[in-house]
């Protein structure tokens, strides 16, 4: 009682806790052991700065941020190089030589008759110097010398004229021929075959995968499900290069046997698409099965109670209830099919072609990236830059699909219980 009174009595008269402590220590040190313990505790309970902990927390935060750095890295690198792809002037050979020596002042001169024809407003390069063509007449061109901040110097006869061109967005998204050697950059030649393989893959995986999911979740016995589901999942872990081997050595010969080897080329998008379908089948069935199993039992029992058959329960009650999960599975599977690389690199053919015939060879976006980066790719070449432009498109497509899938799950989820 005494201590308490003293403590309480002292508190208002002193401004800070520290002073209490000091007074306690000096004036009443020997008075009460309990008192000392309480004041010590007061010291001990104060939050001490813990540098080690803060350091660790900072490191952990950094680890979390690394994923953002990766994303920024992907977007920055893809964006930067793609921008170069669309803005950098590519110098292509025209096979057209200078007809005579020219010095630094000449603005009108003759060119050889061979090679690519020149037009007005075209930017050309002779040696290190860039020029803009003002007029063209009978093998004689009028130019603006020292264009693009280059120095006008003299050139000797026979030096080849290079043509400068820029790939426009309109050309990239509007044309259907892709051939960097002759400066054709129409993405549809590649995107079309990507869509073709993906459509074939979904046509295979969606009906089979969804049916298998319904079977596993609604019909199969507990034991069968316990065996079949892991089997499907293990096979989803087989590397895609193995699926590529399978496409080339099993699916292609099979298709050629069925449809005739005159119709089906050795490399074709149908074979690659079907095998991609087999690859994403476990993904579709496993994710859909999870969604179907998550539908509460009470819904099924209510349907049975109304006299519905198993099929009616499954199709009219369970599948609609699990719709968001199934849709998400399908979207993720599409995104996977678009980004799939090794199967198409092995089985779909090497060489861009704009065709809707699934039995013809056609290179996809991913297949093209693998093929041109496989050799000794020199930096700052149009091939190197085009790789990033294709990559950016691929990234945006798959990212968009993944975001849509997450949105679908969030917004269309039916909440039960």
């Amino acid at each position, binding site marked *: 009682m005494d201590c308490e009174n003293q403590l309480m009595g002292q508190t208002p008269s002193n401004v800070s806790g520290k002073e209490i402590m000091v007074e306690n220590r000096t004036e009443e040190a020997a008075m009460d052991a309990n008192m000392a313990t309480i004041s010590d505790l007061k010291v001990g309970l104060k939050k001490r700065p813990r540098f080690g902990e803060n350091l660790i927390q900072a490191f952990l935060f950094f680890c979390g941020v690394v994923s953002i750095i990766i994303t920024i890295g992907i977007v920055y690198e893809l964006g930067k190089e793609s921008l170069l792809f669309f803005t950098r002037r590519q110098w292509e050979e025209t096979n057209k030589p200078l007809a005579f020596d020219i010095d630094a002042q000449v603005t009108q001169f003759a060119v050889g008759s061979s090679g690519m024809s020149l037009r007005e407003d075209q930017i050309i390069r002779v040696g290190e110097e860039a020029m803009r063509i003002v007029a063209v007449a009978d093998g004689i061109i009028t130019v603006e010398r020292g264009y693009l901040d280059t120095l006008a110097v003299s050139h000797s006869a026979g030096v080849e004229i290079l043509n400068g061109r820029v790939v426009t967005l309109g050309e990239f998204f509007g044309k259907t021929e892709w051939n960097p050697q002759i400066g054709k950059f129409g993405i549809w030649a590649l995107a079309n075959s990507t869509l073709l393989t993906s459509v074939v893959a979904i046509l295979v995986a969606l009906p089979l995968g969804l049916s298998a999911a319904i079977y596993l979740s609604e019909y199969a016995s507990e034991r069968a499900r316990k065996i079949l589901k892991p089997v499907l999942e293990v096979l989803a872990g087989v590397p895609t290069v193995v*699926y590529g*081997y399978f496409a080339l050595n099993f699916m292609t010969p099979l298709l050629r046997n069925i449809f005739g080897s005159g119709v089906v080329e050795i490399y074709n998008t149908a074979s690659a698409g079907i095998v991609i379908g087999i690859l994403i089948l476990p993904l579709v069935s496993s994710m859909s099965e999870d969604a179907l199993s998550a539908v509460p039992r009470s819904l099924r029992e209510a349907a049975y109670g109304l006299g519905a058959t198993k099929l009616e329960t499954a199709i009219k009650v369970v599948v609609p209830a699990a719709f968001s999960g199934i849709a998400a599975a399908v979207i993720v599977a599409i995104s*996977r099919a678009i980004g799939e690389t090794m199967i198409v690199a092995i089985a779909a053919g090497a060489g861009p072609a704009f065709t809707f015939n699934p039995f013809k060879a056609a290179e996809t976006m991913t297949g093209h990236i693998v093929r041109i980066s496989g050799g000794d790719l020199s930096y700052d070449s149009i091939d190197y830059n085009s*790789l990033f432009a294709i990559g950016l498109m691929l990234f945006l497509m798959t990212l968009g699909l993944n975001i849509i899938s997450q949105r679908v799950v969030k917004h269309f989820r039916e909440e039960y219980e």
Partner: protein
Amino acid sequence: MDSPLNNKLITESSLFENNTKPRHRTARFWMSIFQISTVIAIIALSALLITIVNNAFGYVIYESDVDPDTLAVNGVAVDDLPKEELMAVLQSNISQGLYRRFEHDMPFEERTREDVLALIYERVIDPKVVTQYSLSDSIFKRSEIVQFAAVEYPKAELIFQSWINWDFVKAPQSGDPLRAGVRTAVFGSLWTILFAVLLAFPIGVGAAIYLQEYADDNWINRIIQTNINNLAGVPSIIYGILGLAIFVRLLEKITSGAFLGVVDPTTANGRTILSAGLTLGLLILPTIIINAQEAIKAVPSSLKQASYGLGATRWQTVWHHVLPNALPGIMTGTILAISRAIGETAPLVVVGASTFITIDPNGPFSKFTTLPIQIYQWTSRPQDLFRNIAAAAILVLLMMLLSLNASAILLRNRFSNRN
């Protein structure tokens, strides 16, 4: 009994009866459709494995320049001869110039018996494959094959070959499919995985701890979480492009080893094991984070609360209670991520895996090839023999994956037994 209501009931129930049959028929029909779909799915997936096994074994008809039996000395087959006699056999069957060249490359005193025997097989016997058969043909058309071999190639030898064998695992890469092996590729895979794990494991687990134990529900942490989920869905080839731009090109000084004074003109371009490992590390990072988060989430919160109740700090709680309990789950998730990384091909092609390497990689700055890259290259070759060794290489890869997955399952089982 004859009330109109009862009549109505009877007609309705007969209507009901009439309706039930077709409904049940439809139900049965669709049930068999679902069943068949599942069976087709399983068949399609097993066809994958059967194709590979079918190509990895089978009869081979070998034709040799010299019949090995004629090389036997005093009735002892050439395979069983001691080294000295093998040297004599070699000397008498090849030109003196060639023998001296071998002597010059490496004196015969220093060569092992196996080495000399290999030289005899390479230079004297020189077996060549005339035809090879798949496993199914070898089983079902065995008599035809034996007859064909006896009639068409009487001097040739018919052997049932397992393309996957110890020599295949041991031998380095070679342009000759009969002598090619996967040793350099297996080492390349192991080296790249090592660096991938060194990068991704600490950062991945750190990020998972941060998100589960430290992060408040604010915008930046929500962005981090969404971002990780999205990164997990980015196609692997995009990581390859990122690796090419960042590790191979931008950090060339570091990844080529130039900053340490490693001057090797063949590796000076940054297309090294280190670049490949770091690229794979970025690739598996989201998977490791997500798996580790699941494992940490599963630690009962009573444990944490008990620890906090005793006055432990957040890190003390994490280090002494959360992590030890979540570790088996984290390890399982990491192993699964590794097994994904081992099978990755596309990003490594983009990063610049070498196509032909005969020397084992010996450090982070070596050029590299990996097992899936090897499979890809052999699959792309037109010659039939490469198809067989590609199948054998696939079996090696699948065995590596199988043992990894088995260890993950073992870990998981131990974990679930303990709780």
